[in-house]
């Protein structure tokens, strides 16, 4: 046996076993519990594990994700809305008189503005207008005025007949534009 041998000392020899027994008997057991308590007092606080850290973040990231998801859905709905469903901008300068638009839609004929009696049945109004050859082309306005169109040559006669009818409260001929 030389110093260069990989095993310069036989581990399983009687003397090795004798040495092991000797050292074993000479070594009192270590109180690992006390050693751990002493050591633990000197350690920095334990870092939580990954799952524990994720659980701690749960209270933050779940509401955040919920809010972000809701916002994304709202943006998506707005983006997909058809352009026609959006309210057109009103022209702030446009003026509409309470009596209605200044020009009657059907300009082909005479124009009269009438107010029907509150108690007039619709069927009677329809029958009267049919009889006179008049038709409602606009209204009611904010004042309850309806615009009637009649044949130009019967304008005056129609006005008189309307004034005479109990179904009509007032008849006026708007000034020419």
């Amino acid at each position, binding site marked *: 046996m030389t110093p260069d041998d990989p095993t*310069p000392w036989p581990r399983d020899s009687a003397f090795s076993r004798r*040495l092991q027994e000797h050292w074993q008997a000479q070594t009192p057991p270590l109180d690992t519990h006390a050693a751990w308590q002493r050591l633990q007092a000197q350690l920095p606080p334990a870092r939580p594990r990954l799952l524990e850290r994720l659980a701690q973040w749960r209270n933050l990231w779940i509401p955040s994700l919920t809010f972000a998801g809701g916002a994304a859905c709202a943006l998506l709905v707005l983006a997909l809305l058809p352009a026609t469903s959006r309210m057109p901008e009103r022209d702030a300068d446009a003026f509409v008189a309470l009596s209605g638009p200044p020009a009657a839609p059907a300009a082909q004929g005479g124009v009269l503005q009438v107010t029907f009696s509150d108690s007039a049945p619709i069927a009677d109004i329809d029958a009267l207008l049919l009889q006179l050859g008049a038709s409602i082309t606009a209204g009611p306005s904010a004042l309850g005025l309806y615009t009637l169109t009649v044949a130009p040559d019967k304008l005056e006669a129609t006005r008189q007949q309307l004034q005479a009818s109990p179904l009509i409260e007032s008849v006026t001929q708007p000034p020419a534009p």
Partner: protein
Amino acid sequence: MSHADAALLENIASGQHQALRQLLQQHGHAIYGYALRRLGSADDAEEVVNDTLLAVWRQAQRPRQLQIPSLRAWVLGIARHKIVDILRSRGQHWRETADEEGQLLDTAADPDPSPLDRLCQDCDDIQLANALAALPSVQREALYLFTYEGLSLAEIAAIQQVPLATVGTRLHLARQRLRRSLATTEAVS
């Protein structure tokens, strides 16, 4: 290093206290016995256990990869530094005493290993303790790590920070000295 030891070290590096506790349970007794052999004081040995594990905790968390032959050898190597610190605080030092017959024994073959076995069968604990105490401390340390802790020569060389051949020489010299010491004791008795 085994996979289990590597996993344990990784858990320590990630800051898990329980992993360090597991290391204490696995290697604490070895550190304690090793320190007790050299220091002779239970309190000092417990302090070595504590300081060694604290050093393991700090070193494991450094980003650089540690080159560790085995966890036991690494831990005992750290413990050795702590022992040296305590010896220095006592005004002592770890004597790296060279054997006066070292050059001769380096090349001498052991003709018959059996006489030592026969000698130790008859010696008692006191004789053995005296023979061990007569060894230079580095030889006794190498002998302890080899026979009691079961470390390889490479691991002991890493702990003692000497070449591999030096560990073999120390073990060889320790064997020669023990045989001579026990034979003398037997002849006297």
